[in-house]
């Protein structure tokens, strides 16, 4: 089948303004599609990459009710528990409330063992501080070594004020290993009205989507000591306990065992897997994924109809030309393929632009959305899907004029006014 493919390009160039609008509409739709789907994927990935073998123990009343700290040894001795750490929300900010980020007080040793596969230590005390330019102080996640991890843990255990901060926090505030960070406590204000002082021991990068790089981990005993000495005010307890299930143990049995321990109080517990815990946060957003999906679908449909309309106009204008081509001996199928090709070129072009835009802006969007979607990422499969949908719109939109061009007899087509 011989088809004059070059004609499609000529027509695109000839009606450049109309086609530019079509390409633009598809580009916007592909971008929005990638963006909205990425939001959904981000929410899902936080749940998907959460461990089924890590458990979160919280008060059965509410996440905002703290559990007594003497629960720690009891949970540690429950059957099937390999590791346990306190996990207390601190709620501080740096200099002004807008500079808010997540801080958790925990027990460094079990935490480092539990999160070996989830975080990579990209900067530690062995890398020096002031002598090197700031950008050299953070290495790639692939360069993270067990020795550095061990060195950071040792340094944290040696320094009560020591903290491990996420790469995003380090970059946002320009902090590096050795820096002292003053934070204002909101839940735990200092009795003297001053700020808490922490010292950066290490910087981590996430290896899984369940970890937020805009987080700081500090020693719980630093907080506990201040509260006991009345140097700070606030409830003494742990909002949650994170538990690592022992190898071979059944998580559901461990969950039942922990909750049974505290069935008679003083605080009843509700234990769930880390994945279920993350899912509960997603559920708090209501039916957001459905809402986002609906908007994405509506945008794609609206653009689909506008492309169909544009291609119908294009097909009508091409009717006489199809008669000429038929008279010259081109087959119906070739003439039909030409209009579908043109349609696919337009929507494919728009799709490539939209997807490229999503790819280029992904980092910027991640920063903008960091408070709500800290792990926002536009995945290659999302981009591939966006492009595939753009191409599919092109094919389907081209079919209607294609049928019209094929069905019209050459003598009728030649009589038509283009």
């Amino acid at each position, binding site marked *: 089948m*011989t088809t004059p493919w070059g004609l499609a390009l000529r027509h695109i160039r*000839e009606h450049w303004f109309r086609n530019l609008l079509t390409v633009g509409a598809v580009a916007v739709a592909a971008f929005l599609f990638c963006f909205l789907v990425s939001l959904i994927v981000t929410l899902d990935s936080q749940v998907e990459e959460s461990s089924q073998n890590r458990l979160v123990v919280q008060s059965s009343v509410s996440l905002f009710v703290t559990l007594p700290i003497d629960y720690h040894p009891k949970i540690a001795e429950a059957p099937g528990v390999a590791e346990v750490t306190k996990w207390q929300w601190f709620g501080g900010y740096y200099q002004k409330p807008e500079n808010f980020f997540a801080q958790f007080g925990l027990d460094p040793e079990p935490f480092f063992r539990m999160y070996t596969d989830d975080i990579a230590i990209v900067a530690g005390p062995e890398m020096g501080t002031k002598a090197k330019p700031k950008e050299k102080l953070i290495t790639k996640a692939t360069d993270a070594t067990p020795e550095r991890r061990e060195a950071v843990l040792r340094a944290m255990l040696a320094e009560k004020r020591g903290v491990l901060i996420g790469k995003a926090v380090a970059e946002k505030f320009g902090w590096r290993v050795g820096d002292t960070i003053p934070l204002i406590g909101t839940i735990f204000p200092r009795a003297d009205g001053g700020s808490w002082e922490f010292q950066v021991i290490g910087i981590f990068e996430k290896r899984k989507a369940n970890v937020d790089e805009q987080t700081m981990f500090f020693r719980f005993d630093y907080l506990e000591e201040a509260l006991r000495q009345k140097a700070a005010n606030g409830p003494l307890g742990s909002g949650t306990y994170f538990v690592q299930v022992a190898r071979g143990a059944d998580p559901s049995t461990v969950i039942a065992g922990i909750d049974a321990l505290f069935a008679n109080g003083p605080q009843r517990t509700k234990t769930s897997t880390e994945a279920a815990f993350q899912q509960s946060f997603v559920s708090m957003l209501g039916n957001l994924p459905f809402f986002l999906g609906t908007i994405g679908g509506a945008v794609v449909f609206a653009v689909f109809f506008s492309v169909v309309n544009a291609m119908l106009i294009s097909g009508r204008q091409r009717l006489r*030309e199809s008669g*000429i081509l038929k008279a*010259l*001996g081109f*087959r119906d199928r070739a003439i039909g393929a030409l209009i579908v090709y043109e349609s696919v070129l337009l929507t494919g072009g728009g799709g490539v632009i939209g997807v490229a835009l999503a790819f280029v802006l992904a980092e910027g969007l991640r920063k903008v959305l960091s408070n709500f979607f800290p792990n926002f990422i536009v995945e290659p499969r999302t981009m591939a899907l966006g492009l595939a949908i753009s191409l599919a719109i092109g094919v389907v939109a081209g079919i209607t004029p294609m049928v019209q061009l094929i069905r019209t007899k050459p003598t009728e087509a030649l009589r038509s006014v283009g």
Partner: protein
Amino acid sequence: MSEFIELRGVSKSYSRGGENLQVLDRLDLDIPRADFVAMMGPSGSGKTTILNVIGGLDRPDAGSVRVADTMVSEISSRTLPGWRARHVGFVFQSFNLVPVLTARENVMLPLLLTPLSRAKRREQAEFALGIVGLTDRMNHRPSQLSGGQEQRVAIARAIATDPDVIVADEPTGDLDRDTANEIMALLTRLNGELGKTIVMVTHDQVAAESAKRILHLDKGVLVESGRRGS
């Protein structure tokens, strides 16, 4: 002279507004090879329909159409376009050039259906444009050409594949007298020098007189009304 184009008992009717319109009724027509026939007649008499069935753009309801050794009326829809591409060149009243292509590209268009390389197609198109005297305008688009030039490009396109038959539907209908004369001179040359069989429909008596034979179609009956030189 052997009959090159032969129509036997050709009937054709159209349905317009729920009414059946009999355009051709058991029409017979013989055209020898290298003939130049002009068909005249009132509007709606079926002249263009005859051209369309000869050129394979339309099929008769009944009867047979033979061109050279091919029974055109019996060719399958699948192979008919290929036959048209090889054997028939079309010239239309409104030129019917593709507006987004240059003169040369328009002429190269039917050559895409041949096994020629791009370079050969280009060469062939330029040769055809040379025959119609338009080598200096081949990079111009139809909108940049005069009506006469557009029609000459259309004629170059019609002869580019070296077809046996040229069917011309009112080729001078949109042209002024002088330009019409130029076009008719060109068609006469194609018939005389290249031996192309030309079947032309026209309302223009002057244009018709360039043909070797003039046929009048009235009420479905073809009557020869004149021969050149007679």
